[in-house]
């Protein structure tokens, strides 16, 4: 590591830490319908939307209605995406004359974009028309991110309100989040990125002569607009197959830096918003700290493993699969950020990371994408872990457990367990199936423990709604398209539904006032406790699988064997 790398890391962390309260405060104003500077600019769009859709923004619903509205909206999204992919050949905006996709790819991709996963079993430039990319994917990039924030918003209301069954209006939450947060932010980011050289056009693919004299087809397209939201909405679905490693998607070190900031900024800001909305900024900060500890832990181990000597290649850090434009630190940082935040955009091939940094990326996803996590999704996932931590450790102060004054009882525990279980189920069952069935093994490019890591990575990415791929796996098969598709659905809605149920149940409870007998959730002790619970619960679930994958691989590499 050079001084330059160190400066980069420090800059990255301090800019984010500095922006967190600023962004968090703006999100707070939007969420609570307060006065903010975007209201005069885009207020008309909000009211037009309500009028057009016939929504009464003031009308609030209970959790069941909220959930069914959300599920309905997402179902329509999946069906729409599914249909336009199967018919894109007959639809306009298809200059490259791409044919219709296969049904299983269409299913996988539809689910993938609606669930904010953006797992891509295909290469964008050779599979999807501009129409599908823009009307389908870009729209879902916005609304799937907004869905995540809406869920969080409902949970916050459930926790901070008392003795009511109303947790908000899904349509209002969706509209406000999209119009005031995601839309303006992506316009700004798209313009900046375009300034850095990210392409934005509707041209047909160009054929150019390379320096060596051969011909190369350069795919074109409206990339900047989709890339801005792919990062801000922690979607991760690239315009091009190589994602943020592609020079048209991520041309300069500055654009790379901005992209990483864009991934983290909303999830980070939300911790502040959360603290402010539940009436304890200190608690928000504690969550931020916990996520920060886990982030730095993963980053530290990853960097150490990438820079430490590889006995096979001498002391040279491995550059295979990484862009020389970015170098090791930027690639590792990007890999940790993108797997933490459930984004899935990549600027290096994770398949080529050292076994240990590959494992960190895996663990980040296996822990449930709660280290800052997807927009909204990361925090509500974290709230699940908070509930478990409060329940286990809260008893040790001699009171029945309570979180922010609300009692944690059988129902909350049951729902929290369901939410923890859902993604674990996907990862372990599907990976086990894939690792012994011929259809699963057929997709592997690499033998040995690395192949197992590839399988684990695919399902962790699906279950965590991350969307990044280990790249070694050929996933565009019926088997993988279906299993990862189902995995994404379970990983998304298997958490959203129980979380909303918790919100609905918590809203009805009364609030116990704070006293010195209350279990504190706003100090270092709680931050370390929460970290420990996340690591132990996550670790215990996946330790056997990980030890047979990346751990073995690492040990074998140290004894001179690679895959």
């Amino acid at each position, binding site marked *: 590591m050079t001084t330059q790398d160190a400066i980069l890391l420090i800059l990255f962390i301090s800019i984010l830490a500095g922006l967190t309260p600023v962004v968090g405060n703006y999100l707070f104003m939007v969420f609570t319908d307060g006065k903010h500077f975007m209201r005069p600019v885009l207020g008309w769009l909000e009211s037009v939307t309500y009028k057009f859709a016939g929504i009464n923004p003031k009308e609030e619903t209970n959790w069941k209605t909220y959930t069914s509205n959300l599920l309905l909206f997402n179902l329509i999204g999946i069906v729409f995406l599914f249909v336009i992919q199967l018919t894109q050949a007959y639809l306009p905006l298809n200059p490259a004359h791409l044919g219709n996709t296969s049904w299983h790819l269409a299913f996988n991709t539809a689910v993938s974009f609606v669930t904010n996963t953006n797992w891509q079993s295909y290469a964008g430039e050779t599979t999807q028309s501009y129409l599908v990319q823009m009307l389908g994917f870009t729209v879902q990039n916005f609304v799937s991110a907004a869905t995540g924030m809406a869920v969080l918003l409902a949970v916050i209301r459930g926790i901070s309100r008392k003795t009511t069954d109303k947790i908000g209006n899904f349509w209002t939450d969706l509209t406000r989040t999209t119009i005031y947060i995601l839309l303006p932010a992506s316009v700004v980011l798209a313009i900046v990125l375009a300034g850095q050289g990210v392409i934005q056009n509707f041209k047909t693919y160009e054929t150019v002569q390379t320096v060596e004299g051969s011909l190369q087809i350069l795919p074109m397209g409206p990339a900047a607009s989709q890339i801005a939201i792919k990062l801000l909405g922690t979607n991760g679905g690239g315009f091009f197959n190589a994602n943020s490693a592609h020079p048209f998607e991520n041309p300069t070190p500055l654009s790379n830096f901005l992209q990483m900031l864009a991934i983290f900024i909303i999830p980070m800001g939300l911790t502040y918003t959360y603290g402010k909305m539940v009436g304890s900024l200190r608690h928000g900060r504690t969550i931020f700290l916990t996520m920060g500890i886990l982030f730095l832990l993963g980053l530290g181990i990853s960097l150490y493993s990438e820079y430490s000597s590889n006995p096979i290649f001498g002391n040279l850090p491995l550059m295979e699969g990484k862009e020389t434009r970015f170098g090791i630190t930027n690639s590792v940082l990007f890999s940790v950020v993108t797997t933490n935040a459930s984004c899935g955009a990549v600027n290096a091939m994770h398949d080529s990371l050292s076994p240990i940094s590959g494992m960190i990326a895996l663990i980040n996803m296996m822990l449930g994408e709660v280290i800052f996590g997807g927009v909204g999704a990361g925090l509500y996932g974290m709230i699940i872990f908070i509930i478990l931590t409060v*329940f*286990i*450790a809260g*008893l*040790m*102060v*001699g*009171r*029945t457990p309570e979180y922010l*004054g609300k009692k*944690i*009882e*059988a129902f*909350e*525990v*049951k729902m929290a*367990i369901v939410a*923890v*279980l859902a993604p*674990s*189920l996907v990862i*372990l*069952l599907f*990976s*086990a199936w894939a*690792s*012994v069935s011929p259809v699963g093994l057929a997709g592997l490019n690499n*033998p*040995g*423990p690395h*192949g*197992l890591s590839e399988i684990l990575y695919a399902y962790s990415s699906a279950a965590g709604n991350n969307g990044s791929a280990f790249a070694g796996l050929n996933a565009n098969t019926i088997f993988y398209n279906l299993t990862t598709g189902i995995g994404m659905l379970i990983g998304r809605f298997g958490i959203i539904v129980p979380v909303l149920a918790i919100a609905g149940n918590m809203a009805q409870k*009364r609030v*116990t*006032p704070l*006293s*010195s*007998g*209350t279990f*504190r959730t706003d*100090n270092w*002790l709680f931050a370390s*406790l929460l970290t*420990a619970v996340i690591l*132990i619960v996550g*670790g*215990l*679930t*996946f*330790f*056997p*699988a990980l*030890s*047979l*994958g990346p*751990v*073995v691989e690492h*040990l*074998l590499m140290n*004894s001179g064997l690679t895959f």
Partner: protein
Amino acid sequence: MSTKPEIKLFNKRLLRQAVQESFVKLNPVLLIKNPVIFIVAIGSVLTTLVVFMDIFNGSFSFFNFQIAVWLWFTVLFANFSEAVAEGRGKAQADNLRKNRTQTQARKMTGKHEVLVFATELRKGDIVLCKAGDIIPSDGEVIEGIASVDESAITGESAPVIRESGGDRSAVTGGTKVISDQIVIRITSDPGSTFIDRMIALVEGAKRQKTPNEIALSILLSGLSIIFLLAVTTLPAFFAYSLSASGLPGSQNLTLPVLFALLVCLIPTTIGGLLSAIGISGMDRLLQRNVIATSGRAIEAAGDVDVLLLDKTGTITLGNRMATDFIPAEGVTPAELADAAQLSSLSDETPEGRSIVILAKEKFNIRGREVHRLNASFIPFTAQSRMSGIDLRTEDGLHQIRKGSAEAIRSFILNNNGFFPQKIQDIVSELARMGATPLVVAKDNKVLGVINLKDIVKGGIKQRFAELRKMGIQTVMITGDNSLTAAAIAAEAGVDDFMAEAKPEDKLRRIREEQANGHLVGMIGDGTNDAPALAQADIGIAMNSGTQAAREAGNMIDLDSNPTKLIEVVEVGKQLLMTRGALTTFSIANDVAKYFAIIPAISASLYVGKSGTGILSALNIMQLGSPQSAILSAVIFNAIIIVLLIPLALRGVRYHPVSANTALTRNLIIFGIGGLIAPFFGIKLIDILINL
């Protein structure tokens, strides 16, 4: 505290019974109530089947046999912990049952007295109990007064007074009338009397899971499912790794090994001890002579954050005591003391007696006989509001009186004396400080003031400070005026007080606190306390109280000691802490078990030049062999249940400290301790196995 025969934590007879019970509890119908242990039982059965099949195939594996044995032990140890806890309750129930002998009762039918068996009595029957009779069933005294020996239920040998009307009218079946006679209306049918319910409770026959216990069971089942998932998918990953290492699929993990891993991972420690913890909570209350009508009540006790405490008896000693003689101008203190003592010689109230004692202590004025003094005693009446004596001496009749300032003022004015302003000032000053001033007068002259003070119980201030640290607010309830109440509140260190409180004020206060999210605990005895006791989250009725109060509360204090409320809260907190501590310990333990078992089971995979599997690098405990590693983990897992039984029964050590301090303490002991201990435990067992 009473001196109840203490049941030792482990005595031989109880242990023998518990061992028997552990086997009885293998009944699947009983086992399924505890999902974690049920999983272990399934593992034991299947592993045993494997052992038998091995024998059948002529390939007996001693290793599999050992695993089967230790899995069975795990189930038995969990059953044993529950049986021990129940056994202690049963022993206490037997003590109670001895007192419920087949007594005969004098049932009153009209004017006649009929002898019937106690079991034939129904609610509403009237019975007569004479000295020496055993009271046949629970009831309320409707006529008469008697002293009753309640040692059968309280262990307290000093008899207590039970009388009709008022707050001491309830009698309990099985207790014995010592003197006089009372007429009782029976208030419960056979089988549902106080002692019957008590027996059912301590035996755990009616034990239902408490809300927190249910939530915890769900968590434990959830964790078990997660580990079940991790273990059942392992053979697939293993098969993949076997083929990657070029080994045949037949070398995959065997059923006994998989169950060994599963049983080590699922939270068997807390799963096995959970019900023992709950039962022993009841038991610990009983040791303190408090009976909870449900386990839910004990849990709620831990959550209580507002305590309503009656001033008298809880915060102050029962009665006011004389502490000072403050003479009027021109009167010596000795003169005043002498008059005060004379006026109180026949005053049998505790206040009166305290004046006599003070006079003796301060001025060595001995007790005198009133009739020898040629004096007549003037008792306190509601009209005069004074008491004293009329003393006949050579120079005529002297009237000595003591009473409230107003009463004495009118007495003096009637005798053409005058009431000095200075005395009035002293009186106001004392009242302001929370004392009760009594003015003493002789004929038409004021002699001075006796300072009667409420004596705050020793150590109570510190107790309240501890409660405050634990986040519990104390509210003093008193009928005194607010001036007096404020002074005592300040002296005792309570957080708040309610002066001139009427029973309905209590009820209103409880509702207010609850509306603000607080959980309220209170202790009471009278009929007028019943609504408040019922409304409070924890209502402790004193056994000496009325039947109505006893029905309304969710706990009964057999000692009728108002300070008990605080102890009850502590027992509740201790119960919850024990549960949390053992859960944390159980989960933290898993880390070490992974490090024992994972390298052991994958010893054959990716074998390098050294001849050992590459994952043996994870064998940081340096365990002897793969088999001994697995066995050690399973044995540790089983034995730790037995080792923790005393802790489950006694509860974790309890200190009155803030939540944060308590958490830090318990985390260090049970969290970090739970992480480290099994590394040493497993290593030790491994060494022993490989000897």
